Each structure stands twice: as C-alpha cells, then as structure tokens.
C-alpha cells in the first residue's frame, strides 16, 4: 500500500510524469511567490496613509510592460506544452515486445486475462521490467483503469477497445482503482497489481488453473459462429484469408491502406462493409449483437495466433 505522504514511482512512465510535475510545481511556486509577494508588499507599503512615496508615476510605459509579460508567459507556456507533449507522444505506443493483457471491466469488478488464458478478478500479476500492453473494454458503463503508482489512467469504454501500457520498475503490490464514476459501488471497484520477478511471474503463471487460452476459445468460436464457412483456407467462398493477417498492412478497395490491428479486426466483424479489402466483394454480414466483447477478444487472439504460426510478426 502507499505511504501517506509519497507515491512510489513504480513504472518508467512515473518517472517521466514526476519530472514534468516537479517542473510545474517549481514554476507555480515561483509564480505564486511573485504574485503573493507583490500583493502583500504592496498591501503593506501602500496601505492608506502610509508614508510611502506616491507622486507622479515613473515613466514606464504601460504598453511595453503588458507586451513584455504577455510574451513571457506565452513562451513559458509554449515551452511547457512542448515538453509535456513530447513526453506524451513518446509514450503513446507500447513497445513491440510487450506482454498483452486483456481487461474487461464491469460494474464493479476488473477481469483480467493473460495471453495464455489465465484469468484473474480484481488482480493482475505482471513481471517487472517488461512492458505490458492492456487491451481493455467494458461490458456496461465507462470505467477508468487507474494505477497511481504507475501514473497511468485510461477510460474503459463499452463497445470499443482502448489501450494503455506500462513497464513496472519496482516489485510490490500497487492499488488499481476505477477513476471514472460508474454507479453505486464505484469506490469499491478496486484491485491490486502485483509486480513480480520475471521467473516468479513465469512460475505463478504456470501454476494458474488451465484456463482455455484465448486463442483456443477463439478457434472454437471461429467454427461455431460460422466464420470458417468463408474464411477457412478450404472454403470455396471468395473471402480474405486470415493467416498472417495480424499486424500486416491491408490494401482496401477504396485505395486506403490500414494496419490489421485489434481495432481493425473488431470493426471488420461488427461493420464489415466499412473497410472492404481490395479484390473482394462486400458480402460479409455484420456480427454486431451476435458477438460480445469477450468473444471478439477471443477471435482476435485466434487471428493473431494464425499470424504467428506462419512466422509473421
């Protein structure tokens, strides 16, 4: 648990955020000191009836004063923006070797699932020093995945995937909180992130009950939902093959190119007519309403696994 007066910096991002934050605190403190200092000293020096000199105002031109401090504040703020924005841009995409963890939020619990299918509730075990990419969606309302010690927060939306990532740098147990108001037990929607040594993590993972891993669940859905009727390599229907698809750049019929990532695959299932692959007819029906978010995550994992089998990554 956290100490009362300090927050651990337990991820790479935490160090970056605290750096900017410290700079902002210094800028703010100096500005406050200046404003309060001037307010108080003027208030004392020029209190009614004091002996301080008044008389004609010195010839400092108003306009230059105004332009001066306008420009000064503008450049200061522009610098702060540039700094914060470049830190933000630098941390947008997770490194390629990141572990992928799926998060499903619902009123009022966090369900997490590791790539091998191991599931946890209100808990997440991760290895230290290894980037972890979270692919998150919600079953009901908007939640927000907030780990103060990692300085990450990302809203978890129904009907859509959102992503964030972190790389833990400290061993220990850190609170996971829901930061977006989500109803009655919002404040009870808390969990724990346990950061372990890599070898401990491997041991922990293998000790988990044999959950069907996501890709296997996906493979079953692939058949039971009828996807295989067109997309299986043996099928007679002219439909895009899925082997090696994940992560590839796809040429669309209207000339656009898109990367076949989670979002694209999700859209292709729910709104198949939106992005038609070049050379194919728009014949696929929408699966919206037939697949829930968990199914989509499983199918996506299955399609991913197809890519890996062909050595494509």
């Amino acid at each position, binding site marked *: 648990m956290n100490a009362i007066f300090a927050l651990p910096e337990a991820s790479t991002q935490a160090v970056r955020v605290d750096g900017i934050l410290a700079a902002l605190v210094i800028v703010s403190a100096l500005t406050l000191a200046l404003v309060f200092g001037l307010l108080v000293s003027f208030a004392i020096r020029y209190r009614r009836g004091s002996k301080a000199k008044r008389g004609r105002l010195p010839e400092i031109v108003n306009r230059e004063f105004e332009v001066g401090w306008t420009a000064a504040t503008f450049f200061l703020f522009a610098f702060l923006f540039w700094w914060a924005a470049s830190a933000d841009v630098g941390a947008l995409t997770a490194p390629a070797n990141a572990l992928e963890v799926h998060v499903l939020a619902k009123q009022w619990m966090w369900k997490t699932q590791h790539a091998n299918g191991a599931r946890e509730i209100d808990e997440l075990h991760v290895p230290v020093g290894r980037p972890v990419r979270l692919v998150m969606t919600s079953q009901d309302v908007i939640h927000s995945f907030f780990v103060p010690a990692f300085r990450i927060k990302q809203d978890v939306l129904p009907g859509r995937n959102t992503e964030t990532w972190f790389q833990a740098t400290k061993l220990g147990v850190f609170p996971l909180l829901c930061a977006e108001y989500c109803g009655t037990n919002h404040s009870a929607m808390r969990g724990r992130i346990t950061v372990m040594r890599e070898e401990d993590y491997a041991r922990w993972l293998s000790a988990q009950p044999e959950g069907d891993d996501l890709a296997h669940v996906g493979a079953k859905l692939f058949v039971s939902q009828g996807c295989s009727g067109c997309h299986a390599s043996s099928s007679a229907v002219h439909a895009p093959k899925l082997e090696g698809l994940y992560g590839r750049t796809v040429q669309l019929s209207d000339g656009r190119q898109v990367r076949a990532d989670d979002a694209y695959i999700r859209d292709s299932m729910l*709104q198949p*007519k*939106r992005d038609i692959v070049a050379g194919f007819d728009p014949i696929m029906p*929408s699966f*919206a*309403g037939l697949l829930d978010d968990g199914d989509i995550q499983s199918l996506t994992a299955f399609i991913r696994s197809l890519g890996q089998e062909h050595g494509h990554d």
Partner: protein
Amino acid sequence: MSDATALLREPWQRLERQRQAGKFGIWIFLASETLFFGALLLTYAVCRIEHPDAFAAAGRETNIWFGTINTAILLTSSLTMAVASQAAAQKGRVRQLVLACLGATAALGVAFMIVKGFEYKEDIEKHLVPGTGFALSQPSAQLFYGLYWLVTGVHAIHLTIGIALVVRLVLLGAARRIRLRGSPELEVTALYWHLVDVVWIFLYPLIYLPGRAS
C-alpha cells in the same frame, strides 16, 4: 404618431431604436439556435462517419417524395413570409397584402405539418421506430432513426411555435389590435420563420438523400 407610441415599449424612447434592438436580439437568439441545431447535426455527422453503410441503408428507407414536397412547401412559405415582412417595412398601403402573405405562410406551415403527419404514419407502419421489431437488420441503422425522429420532432416543435406566432400576428392584425406596418414583432417573427426554414434545408439532404445512389 400615436401609432408609433402604440408600438413603443419600456425602456425605449424611440421606436427606431427599439426596432433595432429587437432585430439585434432575435439575431443573437438565432445565433444561439444555430449552435442548438449545429450540435444535433454534429451528432448526426459523427454517427454517420462511424456507420456510413448503416446510414445509407437507413436513408434509403425514408420517403423522398414527402421530404421533397415538404421542402418545397417550406421554401414557398419563406417566400410569402419574406414578401410580408418586406412589404410591411414600406410606407404604402400594404395591410391587405401583408395579412394575405402571413395567412399563406401559416397555411403552408400547417400543410408541412400535415404532410409530415402522413410521413410519420408511413414510417410507423414500416417499423422504422427504433427498438424491438425495427425494420432494418443493422443495429446502427437505429441510430439514424433515433436521430430522424428527434431532429424532425424538434424541427416540428420550432415550426409549431412559428405557426402560432404568425397566426397571432394575423389575428391581431385583422382585428386592428396592432399595426402591422413597421411592426418590430413582424420583423422578428419573420426572421425566426426563415431560420426554421434554413434548418430544414440542411435536414433535407441529410435525411432523405443518403444511400440513393447505390
């Protein structure tokens, strides 16, 4: 002179100034209305960008004849309203003309509502009301009809207010309770009426034209 004083209200000392203020005031309100309908159109735009096919499929289900005829009716009502308002601003003997044009405007507004009523009836019969039993298979097509009912409904409320304002002017004018020539109220009502028309001009291509080409 007594005419002018009859139109003058607190806190104004001159009718001309009062008229300017009224006109300015209604234009500010219209700017506000622009944002009101702008936000609705933005909602439509975002949903359509996210679901272009469903919107095309849904748009095809609307009845383009009702939509086009109604657009023509409203455009014509704007013509009669413009003539009424411009004639009233002139010095000549224009009372009969202004009354006639206002009457025509109100009648056209009512005609629009009647056509709209038939259209709504048809829509309900075609199960185009979102919810269970909705006619189209794509779930996002329901977004289109959610917006369709809402936007046309809000427009209809605005139009009803407009009709009420015009009818009020006709009744008061016919009974010589107010003087229509130079009346700030007429000018303000006319501007409001035209805005309701402009809103419909934008709704027409967004509701009735999607998906016709394929």
